[in-house]
């Protein structure tokens, strides 16, 4: 990257390090930090949307929808989350391929599951075997995002369901007595008021989501864990101009510090947000503020 990096053997100390850390391979590590942030950026709103849907379904008056919503909320209880991640990635992939197979190759007569194989016709493959590498990578990433959204959507549904129940009954009753319909009550009273009750839970969820991002590695995405392992391993002078021993421990120390900083900053921001938002609300936080003000 820098001019003086052209001959690494003559370098030492800080300039060696600055050259070492800017090799094209290291750039991949920095890009993968971007991947993690992108995942968070996409997953957080999607999971919130899933969660909202789940919470609304769990409150439904129609039994079937209610059961479905409650089942969605409670799937995450009692079972390790990694099992869900590993499960959904394959399951969603197979579901998509199976659907495409049924639509695109209706004349296909052989069974899809043949012993230990999952066989669909060539044009139903996802992504198509002829498509370039980057499409495969994006498809993998999208599967991972979707999996994250499903699992975290269930957590968010739990939080939002609780928040909706925490909105004071008097508020709802007042709205009803003003002649609002059920829809209006939901849109104008319940949803705007529930956020303050949901915020602690959602903040907690955000921290959990950050700490779950290294699991991308398990889903086959080339994320920071992948690159830290890759770059940290012993490099001999034969293959690189920056030979070094086993440095994986340092790379993972770096990741540890990265995550500590990330969660710490989030924590501070969430606390501030909480303080601002609970100002004047009928919650414990708001009450405390009033007492301090007095």
């Amino acid at each position, binding site marked *: 990257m820098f001019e003086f990096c052209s001959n690494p053997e003559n370098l030492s100390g800080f300039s060696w390090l600055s050259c070492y850390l800017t090799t094209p391979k290291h750039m991949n590590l920095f890009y993968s930090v971007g991947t993690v942030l992108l995942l968070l950026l996409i997953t957080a709103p999607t999971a919130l949307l899933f969660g909202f849907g789940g919470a609304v379904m769990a409150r439904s008056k129609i039994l079937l929808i209610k059961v479905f919503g409650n089942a969605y909320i409670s799937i*995450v*209880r*009692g*079972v*390790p*989350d*990694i*099992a869900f991640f*590993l*499960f959904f990635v*394959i*399951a969603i992939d*197979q579901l998509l391929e199976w659907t495409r197979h049924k639509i695109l190759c209706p004349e296909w007569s052989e069974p899809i*599951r043949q012993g*230990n*194989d*999952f066989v669909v016709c060539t044009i139903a493959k996802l992504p198509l075997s002829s498509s370039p590498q980057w499409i495969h990578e994006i498809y993998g990433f999208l599967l991972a995002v979707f999996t994250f959204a499903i699992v975290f959507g269930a*957590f968010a549904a*739990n939080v939002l369901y609780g928040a909706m129940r925490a909105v004071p009954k008097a508020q709802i009753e007042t709205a009803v007595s003003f002649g609002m319909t059920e829809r209006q009550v939901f849109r104008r009273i319940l949803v705007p008021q529930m956020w303050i009750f949901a915020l602690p839970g959602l903040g*907690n969820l955000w921290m*959990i989501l*950050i*700490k*779950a*991002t*290294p*699991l991308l*590695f*398990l889903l086959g995405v080339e994320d920071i*864990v992948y690159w*830290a*392992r890759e770059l*940290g391993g012993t490099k001999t002078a034969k293959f690189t101009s920056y030979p070094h021993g*086993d440095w*994986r*421990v340092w790379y*993972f*120390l770096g*990741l*540890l510090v990265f*995550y*500590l900083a990330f*969660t*710490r900053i989030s924590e501070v921001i969430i606390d501030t947000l909480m303080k601002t938002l609970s100002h004047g609300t009928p919650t414990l936080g708001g009450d405390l503020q009033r007492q301090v003000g007095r």
Partner: protein
Amino acid sequence: MSCLDIIADYGLRSIGLGERLLPRSDFTLCHQFTLIGSGMIWNIYFGTLALTSGFILATLLALGKASKNFYARKLSGWFIFIFRGSPLFIQFFFAYFLFLSLKQNFTFLSPLTSAWAGALFVLFCNTAAYSGEIFYGALQAIPKSDLEAADAYGMSGFSRFRRIVWPTMLRLAWPAYTNEAIFLFHATTLVFFSSFPAWQQRGDALYYANYFADKTFNPFIPYPILAGYFIFLTLILIGLFGLANRKLNIHLPKDKHTKIKFRIRLIR
């Protein structure tokens, strides 16, 4: 081959007894149930040992964080922050590579590079930090009147701690601690996915479930089996902790018992 034969061959496979090779074809439901169940031995091993040993350190950490001593406070605060603020997955990786490099200088540390000791150590620290924070919160919530009553009886020092502070802290923390225990057991599934080698394919339940899902390319059988086992384990845990909760609250009238509520807090 009947199911009993399979159980005889693979029932203790995860600790190295029975058949050497894992099944390679003709996977039956019985194979999957047996092998995944056999893997649960490791989950229970990690969970139980980490929980019991972590409990002691957690108590110390909570006391340290609440203590008046500057160094004790900072030390426990940082310990809790580091283990709660970073993903367990990264902690496993970091610890494994750390132990690998330590091994070259200190040979007596070599067991730490295998899962049974190294991963257990990480889980021990991790659960100690999480429960330490729970206990610290409970310590802060002990009613002043209890302490004043203890003072009035002339208790001080260790006897006050053993008879008043500690039981009250446990009682207040118990519902949250139950959840911590459950999620510790769930977290044990990460061990064999984070560099710690599954020596001779002796892995935990998720390791075998993943093995079957890879081999049969059908996730719809092994993962639900795993889920079943874990729900069963969770129910047993809730039962056991419920018994302990009854014991802790035995002097209170029935309606004042703190109920154990199952709340989510997943992934660390």
